[in-house]
């Protein structure tokens, strides 16, 4: 297609805007990267030495060898993946019901579920803390995982509903004629066919959970239970500039897995987010 001059100008404007946006997000990360390869002495030079004279990977080596760091990463992996698996497992039946059954108030319910997503965690922080305290679930990974799951369920229901909607209804009919119950038809026909959607919903939850801070911050006070997000925050608040370069290295290492997952699997994630947008 031949594009007009005006259209090309508009394209450039969009690129320029995107560049500015990308820089806004990228600058802190670059700053982090710069800090993480400095020696302690160079940390004091601040922005004047954006590219250090003697870059070193020592900081990364020290962080990786640190037993505490390993434990934080392991906690993060555990909480994030259990939370993601739980959210997908619990959202799937709800999404199936919303996809396949007609009932009064369905539209309102769907919006209600979505609006839960809009409530900031901060708003419910104190009641949530007292609630979990009453249940005796504070200070445990179990209780924390439950909250991760709860936080992930609304958006997961929406994602999975879209995936289930894309599985033709006529297959439900064929399964019913073949003598399958609703549950069997869900488990044997719909779920396997929606597998790409399930996987991308899991990955999306994983990424969101990886950066989850508020929930573990209020739930867990013991150092050995912290995920990396809480650990970094606690150290940043408590340590002097003497360890800034180590903290920067830890931060970068913490971002890396989420980034890697996203880059490797972005095709699936995008497919899930746009599924149903194009119907056969």
């Amino acid at each position, binding site marked *: 297609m031949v594009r007009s001059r005006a259209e090309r100008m508009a394209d450039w404007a969009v690129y320029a805007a995107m560049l500015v946006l990308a820089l806004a997000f990228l600058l802190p990360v670059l700053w982090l990267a710069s800090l993480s390869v400095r020696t302690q002495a160079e940390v004091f030079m601040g922005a004047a030495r954006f590219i250090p004279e003697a870059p070193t990977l020592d900081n990364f080596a020290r962080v990786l060898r640190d037993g505490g760091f390993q434990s934080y990463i392991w906690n993060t992996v555990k909480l994030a993946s259990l939370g993601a698996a739980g959210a997908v497992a619990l959202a799937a039946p709800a999404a199936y019901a919303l996809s396949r059954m007609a009932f009064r108030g369905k539209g309102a319910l769907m919006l209600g579920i979505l609006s839960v997503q809009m409530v900031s965690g901060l708003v419910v922080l104190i009641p949530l803390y007292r609630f979990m305290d009453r249940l005796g679930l504070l200070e445990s990974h179990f209780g924390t995982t439950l909250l991760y799951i709860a936080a992930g369920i609304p958006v997961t229901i929406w994602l999975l509903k879209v995936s289930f909607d894309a599985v033709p209804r006529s297959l439900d*009919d*064929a399964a019913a*004629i073949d003598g399958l119950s609703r549950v069997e038809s869900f488990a044997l026909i719909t779920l396997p066919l929606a597998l790409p959607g399930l996987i991308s919903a899991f990955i999306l939850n994983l990424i969101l959970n990886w950066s989850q801070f508020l929930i573990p911050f209020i739930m867990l006070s013991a150092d050995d239970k912290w995920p990396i997000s809480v650990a970094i925050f606690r150290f940043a608040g408590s340590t002097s500039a003497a360890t800034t370069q180590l903290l920067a290295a830890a931060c970068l290492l913490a971002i890396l897995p989420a980034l890697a997952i996203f880059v490797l699997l972005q095709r699936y994630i995008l497919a899930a987010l746009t599924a149903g947008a194009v119907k056969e």
Partner: protein
Amino acid sequence: MGQVELQSIHKSFGPTAVLDDINLTIADKEFVVVVGPSGCGKSTLLRVVAGLEEASSGALLFDGRAVNALSPGERNVAMVFQNYALYPHLSVATNIGFGLRRAAMSRREKRAAIERIARLLEIEPLLKRRPNALSGGQRQRVAMGRAIIRNPAVFLFDEPLSNLDARLRMQMRSEIRGLHSKLPTTTIYVTHDQIEAMTMADRVVVMNAGRIEQIGTPSQIYDTPRTTFVARFMGMPSMNMIAARYDGDALVLPDTRVPVPADWPERLAPWVGRELLLGLRPEHLSLRTSPGGVPATVDLTEPTGSETLVYLHHGDTRLAARTPPDTRLRRGDQVHLDLRLDRATLFDPDTTLALPTLPADPITKGETA
């Protein structure tokens, strides 16, 4: 082992009635074709019989037993869907055998059953493939295999051939009929294609806007349509409908009078001086070589090779005539037509119903073959 009876079945989706007072009895092993324009409720009818849709009211009986409350699986019906509805993630063999999951058969027996069906349908080499690696015709066969293997009491087909090309459709038509004679099973076959209805059915059910217009053998439906809808819907080109006034001994057309056969005046006594619709199939109009009959002007000719269809008009009335292949006519030619009134069906223009007494017993409603 497979009589199906629908007793005043109604079905509404919200305020819209989709099935309106459907009464139909299908004999064991009978092949019934339900035909009607798209949107008239054929699929809904089939889905009600299958149990995929619940009737709003009315009774559904299998062999005299009410099945309204049974799930599709419990009804022992099999269905072939328009888009085949094969499970895309399962192999052809698994697709065919899926309905046997609950059957009290060993793995080996199931395997043997699948192979027997595959042989019957000539799809043995495809058993390991996935549905998306099959052509339309092959998918069609797999869908039929999945239906046959369970040895159901009733087969339901929902426009199974509409996604196939013309040649394959013709071939599958006769294959499905052949299968029915090999494995006689009660069959309800839904289509919008009147040729499928005419060629496949023991009995045809013509539907329109959620109601049954007529039930009868293909020849009854074709020769003695009960309503103008049936007359127009069945047959290609459709039946000519000529508005005429009956004056006691002839039908008065705009430009001519057509004397009626000797036995009509007695039967048509109440219609003297009133308007009628004269229904005549295109094959019952013929070209005269000499003047007389009904004058008409040629609009278009369609030579098909084996015959030539001539479209004409007389006054405001459009007509179609089936003529020999060597007919040579051009637009604007004036011709004269003979009407075979002995093969005509007369309709009341107000009720659109055929007049009950012409020719011999056109009423076939509600009869079981």
